[in-house]
């Protein structure tokens, strides 16, 4: 049966311009994934079908008598085969069109490729930018360069979240009607996005030359100092040490951000307003992070409960300057002793 195969093949290959668009439709021109299910051979098959139909109609004319009985059968089967094939193709085309529209809408709104250029960094670049964020540069007559990337800032915010969690756990922070994780994420991301937007707005008022992306990157890298300070002082709880680090490390990273902004702003009042606001917010945030999560904080969400809940109770805890291992074991001891006592009481 090589004969039908050869002309069919020839017909398929000779089908170029007329059927070319059809084949392209079938194979889904827009998508990057070639779905084997949709690579239908129906173009060739419908061809064969049509050829078959033509042939059958020709045979009917030749053999009228025997073809009457068989014509009905043949036509029935041929028509059914042809219609089935056609309907399948139509359904296939509709599916392709629907899929194309859906993927276009999806790629328009959920395109992460918009963010791709901001993540185009090398590890060496990230390292050098982290170190540079602690070194203020005193060039104020020419706008200083800010790297517009989002990987470093995003990772620093997540690191700050992790450090905050660690700090909240070791100091037994208790948050009612909220969660530790939610608070940590909300605080860090809220600071990064909120203060960036606010300073960007102020920069717009003060006619400073900085874009939103640059502001996000600048403030994000400024959190590196915060991460270092909190990481050290959540483990070594000496207040004097904390204040020293606050001034030194916090001050350095703030100075760096201030220098960059000053180099991009014209006019003494504007410079003062912008840089003063940023410096105040940045330093106060570090203070807040250290002190708020070292005490028991019954959150403001308490007041949403109603009048039958007792008002906010602040129980300051004196945390001795000991190593965290012993501290945690003391907690465990206390907790277990309490549990044992409760069990003994209930029996």
């Amino acid at each position, binding site marked *: 049966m090589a004969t039908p195969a050869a002309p069919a093949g020839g017909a398929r290959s000779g089908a170029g311009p007329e059927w070319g668009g059809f084949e392209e439709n079938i194979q889904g021109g827009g998508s990057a994934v070639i779905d084997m299910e949709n690579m239908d051979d129906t173009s060739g098959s419908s061809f064969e079908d049509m050829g078959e139909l033509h042939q059958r109609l020709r045979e009917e004319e030749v053999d009228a008598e025997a073809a009457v009985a068989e014509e009905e059968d043949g036509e029935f089967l041929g028509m059914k085969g042809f219609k089935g094939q056609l309907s399948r193709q139509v359904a296939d085309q509709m599916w392709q069109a629907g899929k194309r529209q859906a993927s276009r809408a999806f790629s328009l709104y959920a395109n992460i490729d918009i963010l791709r250029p901001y993540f185009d960094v090398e590890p060496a670049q990230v390292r050098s930018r982290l170190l540079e964020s602690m070194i203020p540069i005193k060039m104020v007559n020419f706008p200083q360069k800010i790297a517009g990337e989002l990987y470093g800032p995003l990772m620093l915010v997540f690191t700050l979240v992790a450090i905050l969690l660690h700090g909240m756990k070791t100091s037994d*922070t208790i948050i009612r009607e909220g969660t530790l994780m939610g608070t940590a994420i909300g605080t860090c991301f809220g600071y990064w996005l909120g203060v960036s937007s606010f300073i960007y707005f102020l920069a717009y008022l003060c006619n400073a030359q900085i874009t939103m992306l640059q502001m996000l990157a600048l403030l994000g890298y400024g959190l590196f100092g915060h991460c270092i300070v909190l990481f050290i002082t959540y483990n070594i709880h000496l207040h004097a040490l904390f204040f020293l680090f606050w001034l030194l490390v916090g001050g350095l990273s703030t100075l760096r951000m201030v220098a960059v902004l000053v180099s991009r702003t014209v006019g003494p009042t504007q410079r003062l307003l912008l840089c003063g606001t940023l410096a105040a917010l940045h330093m106060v945030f570090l203070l807040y992070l250290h002190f708020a999560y070292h005490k028991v904080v019954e959150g403001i969400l308490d007041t949403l409960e109603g009048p039958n809940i007792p008002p906010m109770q602040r129980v300051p805890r004196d945390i001795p300057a000991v190593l965290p291992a012993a501290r945690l074991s003391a907690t465990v001891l206390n907790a277990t002793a309490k549990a044992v006592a409760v069990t003994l009481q209930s029996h």
Partner: protein
Amino acid sequence: MAKAAESSGDPGTTSPRPLFAGLSDISISQDIPVEGEITIPMRSHIREFDSSTLNESVQNTIMRDLKAVGKKFMHVLYPRKSNTLLRDWDLWGPLILCVTLALMLQRSSVDSEKDGGPQFAEVFVIVWFGAVTITLNSKLLGGNISFFQSLCVLGYCILPLTVAMLVCRLVLLAEPGPINFMVRLFVVIVMFAWSIVASTAFLADSQPPNRKALAIYPVFLFYFVISWMILTFTPQ
């Protein structure tokens, strides 16, 4: 009876033949059936496969899925560079692990004053949104791994930490003390390292070679947060 008419064109000419000319050379004899469905063999194979999994018993389906999940657990426990987790990814394993971990980490909410521990929903959200974030990050850095493959790998690599949680709970039943804490710390650290090694073995190949560290760091943070939740868990 299916005799073909003669072709109008001369077979020997070199002029371009009309489109349907070749079809007239077909002679279809009677006893060869020309009706029936024209299907591609692969497609019919797929259809057959689908209907066969629909018709099989529930026990068969569940056992098949459990075996697949178990096989992947073995791959996580003995991480080699292999493609199994990536090739046939599934999210059953991560779901089982996440639910187990969340259930074990849940504090009893009877004593609501000390309610500071992670609740079920918190652990669930952390695991899944953490995995989504890491996947987005690795895709943005230029990795060529699909979304669900990455979720699958990250979810399966929580297995060592779930084992650590079980061990910690057992250890907490024993007498307390600094030894107790040291044992738990050691177990959690070992399992944390194991998780990172396992996920690196699977994920590292999909990243551009010079940016592996950038893609692995968020994985490190993710498992660090989970390890910290496990380590500081104290049943009240």
